[in-house]
């Protein structure tokens, strides 16, 4: 097929290409370095645009400044953490604004951009879902396999969470290089490339200090969106503002592995799973139990928690996950 135009690239990034239409696009991306590069560029543009808009928050109500912490809509819920003041991510990467980037001020790398997924989980943000639920998944799984050694770096975008840990990113890059040299252009390869391509930039930005020690921060807390630009020096955690809130934040920020029986107990007797998919792992975060599945686009999480005696659940999908596939998966959620 011919080169991808901007509209198609953005539709792809937004998960709006029906899954049935993905294979030729992914094949093209596998074979075309130019389009891969454009995809990466457009993803950065998209993320910058998102961050800029997110700067505009509705001023808190004058009465009682406590954050509402209500259900998330789209990517909105970090909004109410106005009290979080200044929390600068410390991931020990020694990452600082890169002079080589044009207008580097706004290139906040999306990897360290974390958002708390505490009690309020995104309300059914049907973003995207992996198209490939069959054999090629194995290749994708390989790509994503190694669980993060330290705290994973998480990105929340529009209610979609992409878990990217340094190990995972590095693995992605290596595999991509390997695939390139092998000339693999099959659907699986293409899928990985499609998933890898948008991450390519991220890997570049993170990989440079990759020699540095792995993230030192046990808990990645607070939405860096609040901080605006990347004059961030990700060397230290600076916590100002309300200390107790910060402590509370950090206590729910890190997912902790949980056993199946404990998960069932935590949810009052039943655990929902997606029929036909094999979970990668179970973890708990705050009140929520997270069933994590691996897909060609990243991790898909079925998050559930007990709320007023009822179990609420949400599917959190990575960027680029086709929304039609997500709907199909949603229909397969069973107890």
């Amino acid at each position, binding site marked *: 097929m011919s080169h991808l*135009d*901007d*509209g*198609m*690239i*953005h*539709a792809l990034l*937004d998960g*709006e290409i029906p899954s049935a239409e993905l294979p030729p696009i992914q094949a093209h991306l596998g074979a075309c370095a130019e389009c891969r590069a454009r995809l990466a560029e*457009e993803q950065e*543009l*998209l993320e*910058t*645009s*998102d961050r*800029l*808009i*997110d*700067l*505009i*928050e*509705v*001023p*808190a109500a004058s009465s009682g*400044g406590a954050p*509402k912490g*209500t*259900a998330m*809509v*789209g*990517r*909105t819920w970090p*909004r109410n953490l*106005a*009290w*979080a*003041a*200044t929390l600068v991510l410390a991931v020990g990467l020694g990452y600082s604004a890169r002079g080589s980037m*044009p*207008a580097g*001020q*706004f290139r906040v790398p999306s990897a360290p951009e974390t958002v708390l997924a505490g009690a309020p989980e995104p*309300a059914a*943000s*049907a973003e995207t879902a992996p198209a490939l639920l069959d054999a090629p998944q194995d290749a994708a799984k390989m790509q994503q396999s190694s669980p993060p050694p330290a705290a994973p770096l998480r990105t929340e975008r*529009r*209610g979609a969470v992409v878990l990217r840990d340094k190990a995972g990113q590095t693995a992605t890059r290596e595999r991509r290089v390997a695939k390139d040299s092998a000339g693999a252009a099959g659907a699986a390869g293409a899928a990985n490339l499609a998933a890898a391509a948008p991450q390519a930039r991220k890997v570049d930005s993170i990989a440079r200090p990759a020699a540095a020690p792995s993230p030192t921060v046990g808990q990645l807390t607070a939405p860096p969106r*609040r901080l*605006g*630009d990347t004059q961030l020096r990700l060397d230290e955690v600076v916590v*100002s*503002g*309300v200390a107790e809130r910060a402590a509370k934040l950090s206590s729910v920020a890190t997912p902790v592995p949980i056993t199946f029986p404990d998960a069932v107990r935590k949810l009052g007797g039943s655990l929902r799973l997606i029929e036909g998919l094999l979970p990668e792992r179970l973890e708990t975060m705050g009140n929520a139990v997270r069933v994590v599945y691996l897909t060609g686009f990243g991790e898909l999480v079925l998050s559930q928690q007990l709320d007023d005696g009822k179990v609420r659940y949400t599917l959190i999908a990575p960027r680029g996950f086709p*929304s039609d596939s997500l709907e199909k998966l949603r229909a397969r959620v069973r107890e």
Partner: protein
Amino acid sequence: MTGVMAELFAEYHESLVRMLYRRTGDRDRAEEIAQETFARAVVAPPRNPRPWLFAVALNLVREEGRKAVRQDRRLILYRAEQPEAAESADETMDRGDRIARVRSALDSLTERDREALLLKAEGFSYDEIAATLGLARGAIGTTLSRARRRLVEAYRAGEDTQHVAS
């Protein structure tokens, strides 16, 4: 409020106010328009609520926007918009500046591009954006790509020329 309306309200009110706030820069106005929008929904409950609510709200903005007095209010709001966090004075000023610049950049977009972008920021799918704005679904990707590019470009261009309001 009936049960259905209460649910609609609970589900969409916050998102609607936020979109309106970003669209207008005026919190009070955003709240008023949101209330007016829900009031209209009570009269004629929509079948496809989200696009309907947001479309009505955006129409209300456009209608009101023709009044010149809005211009003045906006000027003041650029300055007043300060984050309430315990940041240093520098950070607060920087942040206020950045927000003002984003607003400025948003204003430089065409109305349609701006609205598409703000709806996307509220988690709308392409279908929903198309339904809300009366556009062809096939045009949404291009619209968003253009809007995003122009927003970022306008923002960066505003870096050197630091005037608060136009």
